[in-house]
């Protein structure tokens, strides 16, 4: 199953607006997408699960995808995080 490692640079981590954007992005894909932090795993399309990982600034998150558009999903999520959720 393809996976990527992302470092969340955003000041608030995956909280508030960045968390909403992350989950919205994941929901655009058919594949099953999981987010993992410190061994804790959750459904990347579930806002509750993503918030529940308590991802802070500079935390590493592993994202795994399985399905027809897995590669596209991972690159879209990577882009979102690398571009810091559109914040300067």
């Amino acid at each position, binding site marked *: 199953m393809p996976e990527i490692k992302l470092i969340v640079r955003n000041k608030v981590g995956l909280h508030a607006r960045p968390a909403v954007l992350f989950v919205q992005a994941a929901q655009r894909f058919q594949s099953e997408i999981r987010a993992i932090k410190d061994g804790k795993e*959750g459904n990347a399309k579930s806002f509750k699960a993503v918030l529940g990982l308590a991802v802070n600034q500079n935390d590493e998150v592993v994202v795994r995808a399985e399905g027809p558009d897995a590669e596209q999903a991972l690159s879209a999520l990577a882009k979102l995080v690398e571009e810091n959720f559109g914040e300067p």
Partner: protein
Amino acid sequence: MKQFKGIPASPGIAAGPAFVYRPVELIVPSSPGVDAAIEWTRCQRAMAAAQQELAALRQRATSEFGEEEAAIFDAHQMIVSDPDLEEELRAELEAGACAEAAVEIVYARAIKTFQDMDDPFFRSRGMDFVDVRRRLLCLLLGIQDRSLAELDTPAIILAQDLMPSDTAQMNKAMVRGFCTAGGGPLSHTAILARNLGLPAVVGAGDGILGISSNTPSIVDGGEGILIVDAGEDVQAAYRERAAVTAGSVSAARAQAHAPAVTQDGHQVEIGANIGLPGEEADALQAGAEGIGLLRTEFLFVGRQTAPSEEEQFKAYLPIFEAMGDRPVIARTLDIGGDKPAPFLSVPHEDNPYLGWRAIRIGLSQPELLKTQLRALLRAGSGHNLKIMFPMIATIEEIEAARHLLDEARGELEARGQALAGLVEVGTMVEVPSAALMADHLATQVDFFSIGSNDLTQYTLAADRGNPAVAGLTDSLHPAVLRLVDQVIRSAHAAGIWVGLCGELAGDLTAIPVLLGLGLDEFSMGAAAIPGAKALIRRLSRSEAQSLAGEALSQPNARSVRELVQRWMSDRT
């Protein structure tokens, strides 16, 4: 008159009749569902209706409160349609629950997960699930709750806690201030009030819910108190303070970023007191030259477990980054019986102000204090960090605290971690014994910061929170001023500087006296900064010195105030 003490959440003073918000109590039927498919259809209808309501609230919030507040409803919409929650709901329905019971069970589980989290920012998100649960249950039960929307006279809002849905439908034009029984400085009400520039007190206890609507109330957001049924004298004093703050801010804001230099060329430093992440932005905007007091209690109060070094580091770092190379004076944890932190399990004390609190806790639980010191040293790396210890009463305490700071530094060096190099170390002077022994203490530290609020209540033996004796606690009492004078003289003789970070530093009547006594740094709430700077620029240091000399020889606080007011009116 009755007074309730809570946690300061948003500065300012407001007066008006109370409006007690009591949401309709929802009774969730525990009856089994008629049929899982029918109950699921009911759930889906409620979810669709919730999405519609939330879209409308989002629009209203965008125009009334701004994008930040509106974004909360994006999160709520995501919660309503959350696939994990949906799956759990269906499982409960399959197991025979009715729609209401399923929502109750599934959301209660999610809320518990958040309440158990260590990180306060993520923990506070639990409120969003509480809010969405209420919306879904109201829809399922056919209940409408609109009392805040129908507010038609100016009022102080009292509530258990307010949720985004409550505040978004509230008639904002009529709200003067907030006081909540529950919640902390990071609660929704606290954040919203700061954004709106309205005073707020949180965590004031369930006692406030017994107040009747329309009771005359005063919220003092800077002090964290709610006063109801105040006498005419107290009301007049608050009206005056509110007017002074409002007037000086608007007039002086334009000059807020210029330094505070007196007519005869003496410059003093003006810092801000902050107690929450994000407040440093207000401080900078108001013209603060540094943070004169960074209260760190927000990380500790109300916690079941102590915050980790990492969590503290992350909370402090943005403050240092925002301040760049401007000084940030962090005060180590100042908790105790009066500012409860459940993880400490402080036993009941008859006299918490004289009990196990502040540095006394830090020294008896060295790991707790060292964890904080390590987090501060790391966050202050490359910045201008200064550390001060609260409630020092004896020279042994400051020696022990410095020793722990050295240990914390050594531990970080052993880990090879980046940490702040030169860090000035200071002590708060708020216990009369420290003021009286200032000449000895001065040999142990790089600066003093006078905590005038506590120094006043300890000197006059009067609890500021107790309305029966609150009249005794005027910090301009000559007894307090004589101690301040002695502290400044001892410090200057030893070649160290003195700041003052109590309410007195922003009191326009006190400023000429403090300037005359030789205070080097004034640290106050951000809102008071422009006015304080403007006043100092109009004063002459040498004239203020004569005024201070006269103030020290007055018999009581009232005559000091009258003296300064006469002196000021001669000069304007």
